[in-house]
């Protein structure tokens, strides 16, 4: 399909391991967002890219979290030295519009469980 694709769908990591989560946005979408969704909660903003530029990373919870989108398409969210509190679903969304206006198209998420 032509939707937002995220991989892996499920990831189990031991505490202290590094993980990388991938997002393939809809082709041609300028904006890309990462959100964190804890169980039973709403999505919490992590970071925003416009093309390859990371314009807002105010939601990243610590310096263990790092995101990149080097060619303005695929994005990777990396979490170093994972902790149990990092367990959540990580959602990626893309949009043809700049900024948070207009419809965000979400992927199905990557569920991270840290043991």
């Amino acid at each position, binding site marked *: 399909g032509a939707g937002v694709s995220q991989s892996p769908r499920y990831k189990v990591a031991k505490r202290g391991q590094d993980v990388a989560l991938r997002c393939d946005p809809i082709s041609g979408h300028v904006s890309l967002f990462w959100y964190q969704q804890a169980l039973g*909660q*709403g999505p919490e903003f992590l970071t*925003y890219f416009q093309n390859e530029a990371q314009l807002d990373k105010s939601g990243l919870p610590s310096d263990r979290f790092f995101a990149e989108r080097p060619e303005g398409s695929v994005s990777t969210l990396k979490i170093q030295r994972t902790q149990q509190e990092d367990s959540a679903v990580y959602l990626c969304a893309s949009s043809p519009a700049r*900024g*948070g206006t207009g*419809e965000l198209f979400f992927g199905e*998420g990557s569920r991270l469980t840290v043991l």
Partner: protein
Amino acid sequence: QQQVKQSPQSLIVQKGGISIINCAYENTAFDYFPWYQQFPGKGPALLIAIRPDVSEKKEGRFTISFNKSAKQFSLHIMDSQPGDSATYFCAACGVASGNTPLVFGKGTRLSVIA
């Protein structure tokens, strides 16, 4: 501090009834208010959205009512169906103020029973 407060946390409605979910916000810079629907194991999907220049927007069985002075908005689902059973999130962001990121409420789990 939660920027968008949503209630109720859960809601059970009879088939054919009206489902009502409420949201309140504090940031007066917010000027775009969407509602997202999420099924288990899926990402949220845009349902309907409103800007503050109108007080109501209707799309099919879904209506957003917006009260700018009270800083509140609500989603009404008419003739609720079992297929509407999902989690609903209100959200808000500021466009004119420089595109603040979309912030979400904590969600309302709706169950429509036959």
